[in-house]
């Protein structure tokens, strides 16, 4: 049976992910999770407390950004 996948743009690259994937699940699979990152979904900042309840949809554009704190 064909997997139920959707297509999103993650950090500028097309990616197929499982339907009903949350941002929390996407963040957890990234190494940056340990050091902290910010998440942008369709040009809007997503609060960390909303990662678990934000389900990614077909065609969404996501950016995982490591904030800059150098001066």
């Amino acid at each position, binding site marked *: 049976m064909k997997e139920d996948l959707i297509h999103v743009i993650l950090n500028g690259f097309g990616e197929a992910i499982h339907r009903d994937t949350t941002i929390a699940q996407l963040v957890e699979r990234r190494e940056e999770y340990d*050091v*902290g990152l*910010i998440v942008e979904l369709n040009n809007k*900042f997503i609060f*960390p407390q909303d990662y678990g309840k934000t389900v990614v949809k077909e065609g969404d554009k996501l950016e995982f950004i490591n904030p*800059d*704190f150098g001066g």
Partner: protein
Amino acid sequence: MKDDYTRYKRQIIIPEIGEEGQKKLSEAKVFVAGLGGLGSASAYYLTAAGVGYLKMVDRDIVEMTNLNRQILHRTEDIGMSKADSAKKKLNALNPSVQIETYRDEIRDDTVEGLVGDCSIIVDAMDNLNTRRILNRYSLKKGIPFIYGGVEKFNGMITTFIPGETPCFECIFSGIKEIEEVKGIIGPVPGVIGSLQAIEAIKIILGLDRLLKGRLLFFTGLDMAFKEIKIEKNPHCVVCLGRQ
């Protein structure tokens, strides 16, 4: 004064500034936190623009490794405090501006005395913890906090206005900083520090269309700017009670 008019003529002729705007600039008091890459650019442009009073703080001395990006400092300044080095250059650039620089550390117990009666904070720090201190102070005093940060080929900037916008903690709570030397190419703090100076000037002039609720992200490798909409975080433990 005729000399001053000549100095600022190219900005006075801008309709949004004019002589009235130049007077506002000359009466403004701005605090620049840090005199590294970001502070070099913002302090230089704020001095050149004729901001009346600039107070600046940095705890460090000039080192050789600073000189690829910290354009206020020169090879001959190595070993001198950044505060003294910056004061020398900025006084030479524009003697009409009152420049006060201090070699000191911004902490919870020093921030009030250091910021004093300045009405804008320009963030030119190189670490997360001091930014958290400045953010709390900005909220306490109700004064704008212009955040800027850089790393590698990238930079970020937004303007936090207490009561109107999210605060620094709304966006960056839970972020941990890695204790490591950060790579940076010189022009990037030049870009971000210059944008911070523009924001400070606009605030002084009373111009709208600030970077309120907008986090501007610059990436030099793609030569692109991206804007991210940011909102107050209802779970923010720092600003929620004050907004």
